[in-house]
């Protein structure tokens, strides 16, 4: 689906990554989340502040998807992964690596790329 209207803080968050100023939201107890959040779902703290995302994270799990939704028809096969950036984890598409070579523990950086099928922006991971 091509997004026509902006999705508030989500698109602002992608903008921040594109401009090299990626951040996450952290509560007083150190729990990290991605926007939009008004409260920490773990400890109910509403005092959330923007903190710089670490420059690199580690792949926590990954999968190569060969049966996609129509919105990723021309992207397939592609690798979706969850990467651990410390207090926060992020889901993204792994780029610039052969899918067979992706492994848990790989160090990656966060970027914004383009989906092949729709041209929409997407969170991508690249090896560091």
């Amino acid at each position, binding site marked *: 689906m091509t997004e026509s209207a902006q*999705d508030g803080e*989500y698109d602002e968050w992608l903008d921040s990554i594109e401009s090299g100023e990626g951040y996450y939201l952290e509560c007083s107890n150190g729990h990290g*989340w*991605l926007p939009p959040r008004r409260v920490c*779902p773990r400890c109910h703290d509403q005092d959330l502040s923007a903190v710089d995302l670490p420059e690199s994270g580690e792949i*926590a*799990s*990954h*999968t*190569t*998807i*060969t*049966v*996609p*939704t*129509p*919105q*990723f*028809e021309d*992207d397939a096969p*592609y690798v*979706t*992964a*969850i990467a651990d950036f410390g207090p*926060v*984890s*992020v*889901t*993204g*598409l792994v780029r610039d690596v052969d*899918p067979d070579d992706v492994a*848990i523990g790989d160090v990656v950086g966060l970027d914004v790329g383009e*989906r092949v099928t729709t041209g*929409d922006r*997407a*969170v991508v991971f690249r090896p560091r």
Partner: protein
Amino acid sequence: MSDPRIAGASVTKFGKHPERTGRDLFAEAGLEALSQAGIDPEDAEALYYGNFMGELAEHQGHQGPLMAEAIGLDVPATRVEAACASAGTAVREAVKTIRNGEAEVVVVGGAERMTNIGTAAATDALAIAADDLYEVRAGMTFPGAYALMARSYFDQYGGSHEDLAHIAVKNHEHALVNEHAQIQQEITVEDALEAPTIATPLGLYDSCPITDGAAAAVLTTEAYAEEHDLDAPVAITGTGQGGDNLALQDRPHLAQTPAADKAAEEAYDDAGVGPDDVDFAEVHDCFTIAEVFAIESLGFYERGEGIAAARDGETTRDGDRPINLSGGLKAKGHPVGATGVAQLATVAWLLDGSHPRADAVPDSTVGVAHNAGGTVASTTVHVMEVQE
């Protein structure tokens, strides 16, 4: 407080019925359940109905009153949506309504029409149970999500795709005598391992099929059942529900399902039983790895040990505690909004001896149904027992 009795239940043949409307599927199951119950439909006081993707598959919202009408009832009708746990959540609402004394007879059911839109559109529709911003836009599909959980499980606890293949083989074998099942075909471990990949490490035989179908049950009070001389020996004695962060990325563990832990603990406490008392279970094996999470959360296995249960023959029909004697979602099929009630019906039939696999659990008195939504961000667990 009266534990609801299951007075009647019915499921349609699960499978590919692309031309059949949701309302027609549900009418078949609902009318048969009422007939089996032997209850005057005029006595029904509420309908709770599970459905997940009716807007996308049939351009049909507002299904509660539509489905009440389809089975000839003029009652308050509520559609319940909790992704693949929609019907289990509807059961919980029905249980609470009866226990609260608000109704003596409640119909609970669910239906899903899926194959009419094709595999690609159905995959797309199922994906909306995930977090749209942070998961779907990163290419997450449901097989993909469970693949991430499976790989994390293997990494943390060990296990292999071959262990998962044994789960598929078991559930296919269980379904061979289930005339309601979508797939009645024996497979081997080799078949499962050689099947096309969907999302590594999961292949075609790790995944439940896309299914059209409906299920319904009639619940009533013990007093009503006695007064009307109903044959309703099985009661729902425990109900539990748990939740979790919607997106996998926001959970502390990718290889655990705490929503199901919470649902199981609540349901066991409610029924006054523990995992050791359970004779068999129907669990939400939308993917083979999901059965592993389920039997660990239900307390049948320690974390990291559920992976070997099927391979070791402990959960097969001749094992100590058979799991998914119906064939599970894997072989029976998974019409999303109907699954929780189909599980309820299966457990009731296994307990009363009328299920074709009841011979595997001849003296059983306690059965459990575990219904999970999304990547187990919603779970219901129901304990059912044979009453004196």
